[in-house]
């Protein structure tokens, strides 16, 4: 076939092409994208709308008190015990997840052979896919009894065990995202460090990690946001004590667990207790949104230029 006839076929096809899908499909994509944006706005709207009803009935000073007693005849809505519960379980989780996740990421990206990595990475990802209810059950029926051997005073429901298990759950996230960040450092930069006589470990600590710090920090912040929002594990294993305490061997309620407790039917619609759910939900939303914004800001600001 000559050059000219091929050109003719192509030109003909272009002219006869049905342009319908080129016009319609972008609109379909736009509608799909809009749905998720609209949903988000809908959620935020409900949260704010019903929270306003709550804050109009409960003075802000009461909200920042340690006295949480939503079901009594004279209810009190101090959210500090919930904030404290969320904060402590999150800190425990990060104490577990950051060192282990980082070590795993360093090992996988810098030291494991290609063969080993091929086996380990999918296993890590399976860990990330386990439903959180399973982790909750694991915390309550395995980790807590195990810890009781070490700490006899540990309560059957406590903050420590779900904190640790939440950390285990977050490890794959920190490890996987940090590993991606470290792998994105160009080989030639790594070679530069090795070529100056640094050992593999020195190269990792002095060049690879600083060069990928934004991705690593972002993975940690996302981990924190995951821990703040985690519900099932803390509901099952940390219980619903509304005491304001820093004793992690005792039961504490997190913001998420509070919402679970009250959506399971205790608060009648239209009561202050009912609207308190939205207030807590709003606080949670602000926290996790803040964490995600921080993660984005960090990965932009500290993005190493290379």
């Amino acid at each position, binding site marked *: 076939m000559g050059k000219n006839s091929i050109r003719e076929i192509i030109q003909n096809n272009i002219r006869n092409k049905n342009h319908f899908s080129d016009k319609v499909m972008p609109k379909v994509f736009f509608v799909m994208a809009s749905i998720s944006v609209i949903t988000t706005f809908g959620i935020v709207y409900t949260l704010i709308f019903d929270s306003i009803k709550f804050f109009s009935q409960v003075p802000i000073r009461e909200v920042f008190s340690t006295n949480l007693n939503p079901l009594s005849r004279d209810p009190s809505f101090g959210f500090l015990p919930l904030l404290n519960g969320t904060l402590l379980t999150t800190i425990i989780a990060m104490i577990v997840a950051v060192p282990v996740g980082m070590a795993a990421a360093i090992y996988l990206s810098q030291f494991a*052979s*290609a063969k080993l990595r091929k086996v380990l990475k999918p296993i890590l990802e399976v860990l990330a896919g386990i439903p959180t209810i399973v982790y909750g059950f694991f915390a309550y029926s395995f980790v807590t009894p195990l810890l009781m051997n070490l700490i006899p005073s540990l309560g059957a429901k406590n903050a420590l065990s779900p904190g640790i298990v939440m950390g285990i759950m977050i490890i794959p996230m920190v490890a996987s995202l940090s590993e991606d960040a470290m792998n994105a450092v*160009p080989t*030639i*930069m790594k*070679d*530069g*460090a*090795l*070529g*100056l*006589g*640094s*050992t593999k470990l*020195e190269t990792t600590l*002095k*060049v690879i990690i*600083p*060069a990928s710090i934004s991705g690593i920090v972002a993975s940690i912040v996302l981990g924190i946001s995951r821990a703040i929002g985690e519900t099932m594990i803390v509901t099952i294993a940390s219980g619903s004590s509304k005491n304001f305490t820093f004793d992690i061997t005792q039961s504490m309620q997190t913001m998420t667990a509070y919402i679970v407790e009250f959506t399971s039917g205790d608060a009648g619609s239209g009561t202050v207790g009912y609207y308190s759910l939205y207030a807590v939900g709003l606080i949670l939303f602000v926290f996790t949104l803040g964490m995600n914004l921080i993660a984005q800001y960090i990965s932009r600001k500290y993005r*190493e*230029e*290379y």
Partner: protein
Amino acid sequence: MRSTNEEQNKYVYDVRGLNLWYGDNQALKDITMGVEENEITAIIGPSGCGKSTFVKTLNRMIESIPIVRTEGEILYHGHDIFGSHMMVEELRTRVGMVFQKPNPFPKSIFENVVYGPKIHGVKDKKILMEIAEQSLRGAALWDEVKDRMSENAYSLSGGQQQRLCIARTMAVSPEVILMDEPTSALDPVATMRIEELMEDLKKEYTVIIVTHNMQQAARISDKTAFFLSGELIEFDMTHKIFSNPQDKRTEDYITGRFG
């Protein structure tokens, strides 16, 4: 690493019967050559003939590729670099490397230059400053960066970055500097500056440079090695290689008949 036969061997590098395979694919075939002190040796040859593989073997960078297998000996001042007494980190401080693409670390200019000395235990800030100035002067970059030492290295131009990488290599006081096409990513002016630098480097260092640029090899090197499909075809004084090559294949290559 120091011993009595260090002085007896006149070669900095004495390569004997070096074979290298990537898996089943042989990339270097029975290479034997000696590199003398304070000379510039150019390595030329068509793409894929094994030039990079060869220089990366000289400082054992090639070992980061797991499928590589080597046979034969490379004596560095009389010592087998694959021998068990040879620490790879020590070898790499005595034999520096400059890469094809400038590869500064995402740190300040100062931190880039003193990276090596710092890693190897030099902590005194004054000494580090001295090393930085000396190395940057050595790489003909001092005047351009002396007022912006704390700026990120990536704010420099490509040619400046490459000279920074040369300074970074010089900062650990190596004896040999390996360069794998150090100017191929640079424009003619930046290339010229690095070529001018080579004359000075020669006084203090032994330089082995891979280049695709025949004029560059002819201009700057004392000896030239011509590689072809993993074999060392000819190795001689540069002026001889370019004026009177012994092998027909060398002649064909330098006159541009193939490659």
